[in-house]
């Protein structure tokens, strides 16, 4: 085992220095805190538009490539639902909404709605691009009916608008606003756009019982998240802080013991978040509370260690400065070691190539380290101020009844050794089928839950004929040497085949019988029909190369705005949009695989990529599995190495790991049985619990080792260990659970789930340390034979 005495001597030296230069230390901390905290002015939260993937990620590169050709991939939409969307009232509403959207929403580019729609029409006389309501919305019922008949002519198969812009019953219609590329800070501007849209959507003039409006679009979702979800994050942090203060009041019972750790914790967290803001690091919106609450929870534990140790020395000696130095000497290494194990588990998140997870890993590590530094340096410094007093040993407590009960529990464990091991194996074994049932899946709605107003609306929207929650885009890009390649009928026929293929995929949304797939083919078919006297048999893509080439050029010129959304100006890149019916992770992965195979078959020489929800979620699923395994294994190996080094014994180190896997198995089994998905939120819990749970194992094993040296018998050593630290193990776990329990009352599902899993994991870890850890230590006797000093 590492020579603790040498390490303690080092920490004593540190303690002496920090007390000796306490004014300088305080001054430095105040300056650091002030400077770093000032960075909070620059503190920004990245919203969902930024996505889960970094700038070097292939998914992001593909998105940038798409946007360099087709512009902003985000748009805003309003689904208008009414008895008849072709009535004068609703058409006026659509016009007014559109006018306000174009006038008030920054970066507004192009509006698509029943009022704005341009329909190429052919007749015997010629070819015409008709805007049905260009000369105003008629009041005359006959004129209204005539225009409705014109727009709804044909069926979904021969009319691109039916079941796309408007449903076949004429009760739902979309107003869509495409946007220009953003120029400044994407997070700020997306919120500005989202709020401008929200203002329009919820203004009193658009509130009526005769229609219902549903807003969609990523920027709108960002604003809604900030509006409805951020207040809950603030509430969770505030509640966490209150719980922290209550815990300190209960366990420390002095003003200084409450105020100093509270201020130190706030200072540490503010400094880290402010410091990160200086470097332009944006916080992740969904996981922002996790490192903050973790920092608070751990700081209570560290503070209690330092304050109680100080009291012990101070009561014994009556000398403040000496007591403060001794506190650092005694607590320094043990607390620092638990910090190291926690950091080791958290840093493993940095290995996951998803921004929210890597952000939470980095931030939590920095916060834990900062909290440790603030607590371990400031508490002894503050406690060293004041007058000395006479020693007062009457406050030194002997073992209480509770301590003795814990001591007796050690005896019970020894007597029921095999029963405990069998029960533990059975309980953990029962978790295995649950683990097999864990679904790797991200579902935004299920993650957030449906208790908040914006998610309630989303649920209603999805149920509509035209309602869509998820969509994706396929981009087929030929190289610069292949200009005009899509003017070849062969390529266009392949595109037709590919579009049909996409329409048949299991996750493709269908409105009526019509798959929601949009591409340049719709425009070409409409134009071809319009140029051929409006005859429906020409609602096709022509086979003749010369005709096709001119049709494409003409479409590009005459319907440039619509055309430029789906094909580039060199006619070598196309974009195909697909709306999804729902999201199932396994199906998504399967669909993505099928799409890639089809693309390779039809367009082997093109660079093809899938963008949007489908690929992001499918990719997320696989990255979550890889990330979880990588992160968990990393923390497991690092913590095992640390235990092996700490105990200077391979056997003890590995045995120490066994009880710590137990809570992880428990969490995973619980997730499987209860139906929690493994997603980027829940995947952070397991390595974190491993890092925290191992602390008690270290304490227990270390005490057992000392006890064995002192008493010579495992039984007596275990009884002594439980008597000395059994209660404090319970206390620290209770504090951690209390802090994380503030999550359980959140209206957002994923916050609630983190709370449940953390509390379960921590309780499971404590149970394991009360049962499996002592049982294994009894059984394996890692510190050699008993000397029987009894």
């Amino acid at each position: 085992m590492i020579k603790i005495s040498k390490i303690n001597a080092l920490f004593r030296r540190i303690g002496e220095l920090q007390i000796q230069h306490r004014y300088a230390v305080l001054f430095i901390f105040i300056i650091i805190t002030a400077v770093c905290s000032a960075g909070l002015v620059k503190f920004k939260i990245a919203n969902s538009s930024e996505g889960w993937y970094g700038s070097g990620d292939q998914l992001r590169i593909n998105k940038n490539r798409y946007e360099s050709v087709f512009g902003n991939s985000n748009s805003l939409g309003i689904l208008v639902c009414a008895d008849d969307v072709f009535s004068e009232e609703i058409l006026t509403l659509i016009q007014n909404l559109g006018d306000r959207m174009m006038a008030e929403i920054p970066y507004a580019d192009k509006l698509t709605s029943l009022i704005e729609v341009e329909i190429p029409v052919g007749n015997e006389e010629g070819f015409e691009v008709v805007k049905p309501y260009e000369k105003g919305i008629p009041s005359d019922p006959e004129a209204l009916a005539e225009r409705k008949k014109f727009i709804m002519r044909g069926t979904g198969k021969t009319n691109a608008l039916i079941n796309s812009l408007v449903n076949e019953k004429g009760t739902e219609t979309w107003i869509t606003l495409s946007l220009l590329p953003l120029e400044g800070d994407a997070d700020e501007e997306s919120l500005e756009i989202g709020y401008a849209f929200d203002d329009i959507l919820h203004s009193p003039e658009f509130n009526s019982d005769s229609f219902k409006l549903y807003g969609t679009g990523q920027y709108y979702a960002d604003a809604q998240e900030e509006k409805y979800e951020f207040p809950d994050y603030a509430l969770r942090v505030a509640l966490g802080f209150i719980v922290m203060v209550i815990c300190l009041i209960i366990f420390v019972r002095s003003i200084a013991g409450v105020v100093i750790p509270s201020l130190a914790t706030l200072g540490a967290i503010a400094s880290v978040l402010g410091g990160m803001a200086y470097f332009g690091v944006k916080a992740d919106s969904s996981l922002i509370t996790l490192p903050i609450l973790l920092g608070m929870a751990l700081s209570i534990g560290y503070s209690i260690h330092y304050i109680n140790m100080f009291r012990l020395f101070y009561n014994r000696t009556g000398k403040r400065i000496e007591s403060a130095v001794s506190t650092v000497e005694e607590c320094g290494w043990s607390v620092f070691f638990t910090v190291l194990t926690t950091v080791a588990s958290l840093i493993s998140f940095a290995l996951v190539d998803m921004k929210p997870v890597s952000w939470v890993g980095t931030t939590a590590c920095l916060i834990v380290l900062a909290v440790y530094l603030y607590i371990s340096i400031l508490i002894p410094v503050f406690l060293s101020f004041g007058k000395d007093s006479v020693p007062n040993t009457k406050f030194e407590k002997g073992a209480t009844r509770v301590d003795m009960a814990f001591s007796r529990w050690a005896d019970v464990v020894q007597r029921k050794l095999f029963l405990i091991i069998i029960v533990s194996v059975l309980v953990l074994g029962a978790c295995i089928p649950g683990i097999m049932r864990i679904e790797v899946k991200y579902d935004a709605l299920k993650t957030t839950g449906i208790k908040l107003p914006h998610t309630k609306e989303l649920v209603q929207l999805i149920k509509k004929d035209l309602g869509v929650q998820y969509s994706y885009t396929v981009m087929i890009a030929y190289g610069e040497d292949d200009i005009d390649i899509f003017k070849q009928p062969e390529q266009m026929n392949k595109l037709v085949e590919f579009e049909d293929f996409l329409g048949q995929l299991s996750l493709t949304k269908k409105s009526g019988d019509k798959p929601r797939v949009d591409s340049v083919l719709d425009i070409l078919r409409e134009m071809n029909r319009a140029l051929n006297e409006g005859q429906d048999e020409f609602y096709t893509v022509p086979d003749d190369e010369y005709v096709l080439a001119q049709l494409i050029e003409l479409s590009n010129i005459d319907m440039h705005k619509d055309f430029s959304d789906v094909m580039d100006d060199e006619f070598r890149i196309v974009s195909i949009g697909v709306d999804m019916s729902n999201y199932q992770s396994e199906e998504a992965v399967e669909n993505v695989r099928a799409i890639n195979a089809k693309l390779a078959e039809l367009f082997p020489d093109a660079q093809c990529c899938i963008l949007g929800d489908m690929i992001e979620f499918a990719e997320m699923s696989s990255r979550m599995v890889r990330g979880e395994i990588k992160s968990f294994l990393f923390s497991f190996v690092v913590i095992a190495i640390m235990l092996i080094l700490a105990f200077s014994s391979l056997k003890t180190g590995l045995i120490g790991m066994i009880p710590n896997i137990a809570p992880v198995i428990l969490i995973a089994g619980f997730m499987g049985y209860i139906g929690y998905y493994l997603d980027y939120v829940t995947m952070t819990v397991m390595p974190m619990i491993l890092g925290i749970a191992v602390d008690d194992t270290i304490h227990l094993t270390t005490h057992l080792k000392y006890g064995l040296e002192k008493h010579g018998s495992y039984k007596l050593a275990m009884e002594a260990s439980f008597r000395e630290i059994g209660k404090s193990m319970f206390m620290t776990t209770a504090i951690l659970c209390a802090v994380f329990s503030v999550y359980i009352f959140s209206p957002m599902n994923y916050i609630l789930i983190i709370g449940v899993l953390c509390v379960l994991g921590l309780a499971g870890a404590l149970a394991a340390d009360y049962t499996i850890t002592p049982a294994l230590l009894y059984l394996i006797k890692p510190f050699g034979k008993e000397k029987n000093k009894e």
Partner: protein
Amino acid sequence: MRKISLLCAGFILVLGTALYAQDANEIAKKVHDLPDGKTSYSEVTLTLLDKNGKSRVREVATYNMKDGTTDKSITVFRSPKDVAGVSYLSFDYPDNPDGSPKDSDSWLYLPAMKKVRRVSGSSKDDDFQGTDFTYDDIGDRALGKDTFAIIGDDTVDGRSCWKLEYTAKDKNAKISRRVLWIDKETYVTYKGEYFDKQNKLFKTMVCEDIREQDGYWTTGKMTMTTIPTNHTTVYEVKEIKYDTDINPSFFTVSALERGQVK
């Protein structure tokens, strides 16, 4: 006394504004009515540059003729080869007596289909042939669509210019405000800035190679850049002839149908 001073000041202000407004209207009218010949023939290269610097070139020939108050024109694509021969015939009419614009008549000839189709419904606010110019930018925007104001003076290419502001009467117009730099001597436009509904700069125009040819002021090169997309179109007049002999029968649907105009 004080009241009289205020009244005088107010009167001068009102009179000054009226005079200034009158000047602006006059200037706008003179710009609009700059002579460009009874007929003209030009060959134009349109170079479209995207934000990545990639360019596409289209070559067109245009024939123009004034027939009474009607402006007749034919645009024939020369390249790219897929669209060579595609032609547009257009008749533009003066504004209605109430100042509202009157719809133009247009026909399209597609050699691949060997058909002429009547084209209607396209607005002058639309892009001109998929470029950064609108039909209004290329042609003469009806005076009735805007109100005018002189917002300053400036010098461009050594020419003393008025900064003439055109504000669209249509509140829903995509371009709500144009500022054009008008040469005080010739009334030729030297540059322009176009603002969207939120008064953000949306497009810029630079005019070059401005020369007098056959007694008519001619702009040889216009570069229009759309700011949000960073897309540019360069409109270069390669050849232009004024008052040249153009067969009036060119400007007919039947001539278009026979593919007579090349």
